Each structure stands twice: as structure tokens, then as C-alpha cells.
């Protein structure tokens, strides 16, 4: 008994070491907490963390070349990077292609390597496809046979790409996502001017989101203020009007925008009828940047109004009265007292609107035309049409990092704990 006391410090009334007893008590509590949080955690892991991780992995994952032509890559190590490689490399390539053709179709890599190489060099896919169909008939010297089969095998650039991208991880998707490419010496340089897209698209996305943020604020602030001064039932009625876009199906919403905004639409017809503009000066309100801005401001307005309203609702009217009784003119009272108190709501609404609009894609695709496109449209295009998932993943990861940086900056400037989301 004495030993126990000295070795483990305090004991409980029945002689158990206090620490162990405490641990046991705590363990139950921790298990309960885990049981409560566990399902959500698992859910998030499966549907959120895991896919995001997979996306980020895909933006650097580069298995096609390594798996398709291991022998060639080994032979290429001897190559000095100048001109064309020598016969052993071509021989190894022929062997790789024949070996690949032996594999069951699902395990073949040659077709996938063709697709992968075509991102870097136009025509590479055709070279692979045509050559791999003919390679069975090839006879040494292979170098000549390859050069005959497709002109690209005589293009040193293709070999440089094979050497550079012949490893399991790649940065090339990020290089492309930044409108850059490798030059013949392997340095990263800006692309031809007429192939640069993404950087300016990122910039436009930020600018559009900023404009939308400003508009939702300019429109939402007075509405939220007015609602906060109304009795509950009128406020609820107004709230329904604000929330209406949430409850309307995208199709209905889009159709009504078209009816309203197009050149032969309601707004233009009214403007012509009232002689504001002549018939050939009709406004272009959709299929361009204006369309995206109008539609997204409409959709995102509730995200600004709701936090603002909930903050304003909780600002007692006595603050404004106090300010006025202390001699402040109404505008001064608003500026110095009321407005600063709405900042948490503005911050929350602003972060929501900005982050959502950065990632929005359906609306711009439908009413934004070309000048109203955002980076997400490009990501969606690579996911669904061009099927360059690596590039889509790189763009998506950059967008994600951008949003995180914005949130971090917001947190540093304003403090995330002041966010009032509802």
C-alpha cells in the first residue's frame, strides 16, 4: 500500500491511483464525444476530404509514360538531350510497344500515354496510335522504321517530353495552368500569347467576384436594413422575396433571365418602347459579362442579406438614438455607430458571396456567353469535354488554395471569429 502511494502519487478513497482513475473517467467522456462526432467525421472524410485529396493527387499524378515505356526510359538515360536518340532507344520503344499490345486491353498503357503526350505536343497521340498498330511488322533498324511510321518520331521535342515526363509525378499540369510551358532547354517560359488563358481567367474571376460582391452589398444592405426595422410579419414577407431565387429551379430562373434580358427581351423592348434607346441600340444584357453579373448578383443576394439581416436585427435601435441624442447627425450616427456594428454581417456575407462566386459555374455557362466565363467553367470543360483531368485538378487545386489564402487574409484582417453566418 505504501509502495503504491509513493510510486504513483495521489490515490482515490479506495486506493486507486488518482491519475488512472481520472483517465478512466475521461476516457468514457472522450468515447462519447467521438461517438457523437464520428459519423459526421466519417461522412466528411468520405465525401469531402477524400475526393479533394484525390483531386490534388491527380494534379501531379503521372503514371502513363512510366508504365507504358519503362525500357525506353531506361535507354533514354544515355541520351544527351540533343538531336534524336540512337537506335537502342528506338529498339527499346518497339519492345515496349509490343509488350504493351500483349497485355489485356484494360491494362494497356500505350493509348493513355498518347492522350497524355498530346497535352504537351500536338500530334503525339496520332504518332503513338499509328505506330503501335504497325510495330509488329517493324524490323531493325528500328529508328528508320519509326521515322517512316510517323514524322513526330523525328521531332526532338517529343523525346525531350518523354524524358522530362517519364516519371511518376509531374508539375506540367501546374505549368500549363499558369499559362507556361517548358522550352527546349527545359526552362519554364510563358506560352505563346494566343494560348494563354488561365491567368487572365483567374484575374477575371476575381474581378467579377469583386463586382458581384460589391453589388450584392450595395443592394443587400438597404434591404437588410429595411427588413430589420420592420415588424416580423412584414420582414418575413420581404425575406421570402429575397429567398425566392433559392426556391426556384435553375431552369425556370434561367428561362426568366432570358425572357427579361435578351436583346428582344422585356427590358430591351420596354426601353425601346419608352424611347430610351433606338431599335438598333438594344443593350446586350446577357451572353456576356453583364449577364453573369446580373444573374449571379441575383442568386447570391440572399447570402449577403441573411447574415446582414441577422446582425442588424440584433442591433438595438437605442444605439442610433443614443448617437443622435449625443449630437450626431443621422449620417454621422450611421457611419460611426450603426455601420461599424454591421461589420460582422458584412464580413460574413462578403466571404460567402465572394467564395461562392469564385467557384460558380452553371450560371456563367448559361447566361455568361464568353466574356462572362469564369475559371470554374474552364475546369468543368476539362472535366467533361476535353477530359484533361490532370489540368482540371491543377486548376481546381489552385482555386482551392486561392480561396484558403483569401480566408486566411480575411481572418488576419477582420478575425474569423467575428463572422456571423446566420
Amino acid at each position, binding site marked *: 500500500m505504501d509502495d503504491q502511494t509513493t510510486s504513483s502519487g495521489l490515490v482515490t478513497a479506495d486506493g486507486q491511483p488518482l491519475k488512472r482513475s481520472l483517465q478512466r473517467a475521461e476516457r468514457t467522456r472522450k468515447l462519447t464525444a467521438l461517438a457523437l462526432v464520428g459519423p459526421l467525421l466519417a461522412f466528411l472524410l468520405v465525401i469531402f476530404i477524400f475526393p479533394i485529396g484525390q483531386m490534388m493527387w491527380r494534379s501531379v499524378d503521372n503514371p502513363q509514360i512510366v508504365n507504358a515505356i519503362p525500357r525506353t526510359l531506361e535507354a533514354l538515360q544515355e541520351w544527351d538531350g540533343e538531336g534524336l536518340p540512337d537506335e537502342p532507344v528506338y529498339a527499346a520503344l518497339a519492345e515496349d510497344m509490343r509488350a504493351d499490345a500483349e497485355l*489485356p*486491353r*484494360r*491494362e*494497356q498503357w*500505350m*493509348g*493513355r500515354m*498518347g*492522350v497524355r503526350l*498530346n*497535352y504537351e505536343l*500536338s*500530334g*503525339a*497521340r*496520332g504518332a503513338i*496510335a499509328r505506330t503501335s498498330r504497325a510495330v509488329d511488322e517493324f524490323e531493325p533498324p528500328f529508328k528508320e522504321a519509326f521515322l517512316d511510321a510517323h514524322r513526330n518520331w523525328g521531332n526532338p521535342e517529343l523525346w525531350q517530353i518523354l524524358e522530362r515526363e517519364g516519371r511518376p509525378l509531374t508539375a506540367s499540369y501546374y505549368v500549363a495552368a499558369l499559362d507556361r510551358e517548358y522550352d527546349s532547354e527545359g526552362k519554364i517560359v510563358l506560352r505563346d500569347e*494566343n*494560348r*494563354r*488563358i488561365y491567368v*487572365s*481567367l483567374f484575374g*477575371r474571376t476575381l474581378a467579377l467576384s469583386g463586382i458581384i460582391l460589391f453589388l450584392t452589398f450595395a443592394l443587400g444592405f438597404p434591404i437588410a436594413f429595411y427588413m430589420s426595422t420592420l415588424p416580423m410579419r412584414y420582414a418575413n414577407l420581404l425575406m421570402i422575396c429575397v429567398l425566392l431565387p433559392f426556391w426556384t429551379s435553375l431552369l425556370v430562373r434561367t428561362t426568366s433571365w*432570358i425572357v427579361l434580358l*435578351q*436583346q*428582344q427581351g422585356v427590358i430591351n423592348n420596354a426601353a425601346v418602347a419608352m424611347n430610351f434607346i433606338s431599335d438598333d441600340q438594344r443593350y446586350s444584357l446577357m*451572353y456576356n459579362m453583364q449577364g453573369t453579373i446580373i444573374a449571379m448578383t441575383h442568386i447570391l443576394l440572399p447570402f449577403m442579406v441573411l447574415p446582414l439581416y441577422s446582425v442588424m436585427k440584433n442591433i438595438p435601435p437605442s444605439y442610433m438614438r443614443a448617437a443622435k441624442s449625443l449630437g450626431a447627425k443621422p449620417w454621422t450616427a450611421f457611419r460611426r455607430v450603426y455601420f461599424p456594428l454591421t461589420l460582422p454581417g458584412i464580413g460574413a456575407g462578403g466571404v460567402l458571396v465572394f467564395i461562392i462566386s469564385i467557384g460558380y459555374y452553371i450560371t456563367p*455557362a*448559361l447566361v455568361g*456567353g*464568353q*466574356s462572362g*466565363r469564369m475559371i470554374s467553367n*474552364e475546369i468543368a*470543360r476539362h*472535366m*467533361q*469535354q*476535353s*477530359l*484533361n483531368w490532370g489540368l482540371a485538378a491543377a486548376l481546381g487545386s489552385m482555386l482551392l488554395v486561392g480561396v484558403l489564402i483569401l480566408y486566411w487574409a480575411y481572418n488576419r484582417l477582420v478575425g474569423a471569429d467575428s463572422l456571423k453566418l446566420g
Partner: protein
Amino acid sequence: MKTRTMTALGAAAAIMAVGGVVKADDPVNMTVVSWGGAYTESQQRAYHDPYMEANPHVTIINDDGSANALAGLRAQAQAGNVTWDLVDMLPSDAQLACDEGIIMPIDHDAMLAPAPDGTPASEDFLPGSLGECFIPQIVYSTVLTVNHEQFPDDKQPTTIEHLFDVENYPGRRALQDRPGTNLEWALYADGVPIEDIYDVLATPEGVDRAFAKLDTIKEHIVFWTEGAQAPQLLADGEVAFATGYNGRMFAASEVEGQPFDIIWDGQIVEWDGWVVPADGENVDQVMDYLYFATDTQRLADQAKYISYGPARASSAPLVSTHADLGIEMGPHMPTNPDNYYAPIVLNNDFWADYGDELRERFANWMLQ
């Protein structure tokens, strides 16, 4: 008929290592992926309904996923859970999927019905249309269409050249938001002979020339993304010209009575057809369905509902009248000799090689 089907199925069964033979009374649900809208409707009436009538145990479920068919096939193959039984897709995507091994190779003569006169399938289908894993179904074309109310009667546009002539033919133009078709037309309108278009486009100078031509009408362009947008824009009077799929334009002008005129000059012709996902659950049934749905009469039947041309030579004489409107469908087919006077056959090999680069260039051009 039935015995022959079973013989054909032998090959499929061997490839897929599926044991046993389908019992006629086991209920089967077959998911068929297609483009939706009027197109799926035409397949429903020409293929699905008669097939289900003959095979009461089969239920065909339509899925409108063809716009993203390749992405869907890849995702299902990766997840190891193939839920699509049959997919309608474009030959270019089919070639990619075939290279990746996620769809089944097709032995056309063994698996498909010969023509009524005994011509084997591989010779009956139009030249160049068959793919390693691809069974063509229709010929469709992307055509220029005008709203004739927007032009005076004596100055109606009739050629692709007029699309690029904003001075004499004013009005906005709705073009698809991708390089394919637009670049071909730009060169065609700029005087490049049809047979040289892809050779010219394979050179940097050719690409510059095409974009320079597009630049001349750029400020008059409204871009469309979804197939339904083009006839809509044209009908609303938002644009004077629109490019679009000939079937949709036919539906808008003939079925809905819109004031549209199709300009067959420079129509861009492509196939569309079936592929069979590898590792599907109902492969035997799917092959039985395909034997039925791609025979001469069935392909001719589809033309009763939509103005896409059958992919079999033997079907052409059987094309009759529209099932609801009663009008002759022949004159509305892209392949009708009166319409087929200056076709540009879409070169999938070219787009497989240059598509990535040109798409970037086109996206950049649109953003400028």
C-alpha cells in the same frame, strides 16, 4: 433469327467470359445512355419500344448522359461498378475509350445483321464509319441555319461565305463555343477547297488564317454551349444565323414551324453510334438488342422521327415519311444528294491530334 443471334452471342460470351445463356424469362433492366430530347425519343420509338414488345422481360431505361459519356465511362470503369449497358457516343470519344479498354471491341460481321440482300454488315455500313469498338447508327451534320425573316427576300444567305459577310448579311451569329466546325468553316469561307481544309489547318499559318477569318465577325458572335440553345436563339430573334445540329434545326423548322432555312453548303458531317461498356452486367442481352436495333429496317425507321441519316447504305431506300407530320424525310436527310453537294466530313484523327492545342487557342481567342 434467334439461332443466328445466339451464334453471334457466342463471340461476345467468349470475350466477356460470361457463363450460361440468358433465360428468356429472367427480367432484365437495360440502361441505355443517349443524348436526350428528340433524339432519345426517336430511339425509343424506332428501337426500344419494338424490342421491348418482342422481349417482354426486358425493360430499357434511358439515361441522358451522352454529353459526358467518356467521363462517365472512365469513372465507372475506375470505380469497378459499370451501370451503363449501352452508350450512344461520338466516334472520336469512342476511339479514346477503345484505346483505354473500357468499351468492348466489336466484330461487326459476327455481331451485326447483314443487309437484306446478304451484304455483310462491314460492307453495308457507310465507308469509314465503323470503328474498332464503334457501331455507327446515324449520320448527322452541323449546319448553318438562318432565320429567313431577318433578311429581305431577295437577299437571303445561302452559303458559308455569307456567314462571314456581315456587310451584306448583318445580324448576330450564334456559333458553338469550340474550335471544331468553326475553324473548318473559316477556311472554307476563305477559299480553301474542302479536301484541303485539314491539311491547311495542320499548319500554324493555316490556324492563323482561320482565326483571322473568325476575327472579321467576332463582335457579331453569340456563343452557344448546349445543343438546344442554337434554335432557341434563332427563334427568339437574338441572332440571324446559328450553327446547329441538323436534327434540332429540322425539329424547330418543321415540327415547331419556325421560319428557319437550313444552308447545306459546307455541312460538317459526322457519325454517331453505339458502344458497349466492358464488364457490363447484361452484355448478352445488349448484343441481342444491338443485332436488332442496327439492322437495315430499324435504322430506316429512326428517320421517321428525326432527320438524321441512317448509317447503312441499305437503309436509304427504306426511309419514308415522318411518323407524325407525314412529310417525306428524304429531302431533310444530310445524306440526300441534293443536300450533300459540299459536305465537310469531320476528321476525327485530326482533332485527336490537334484538338488539345486548338481548344486552348480557341478559348484564348474567345476571351480576348
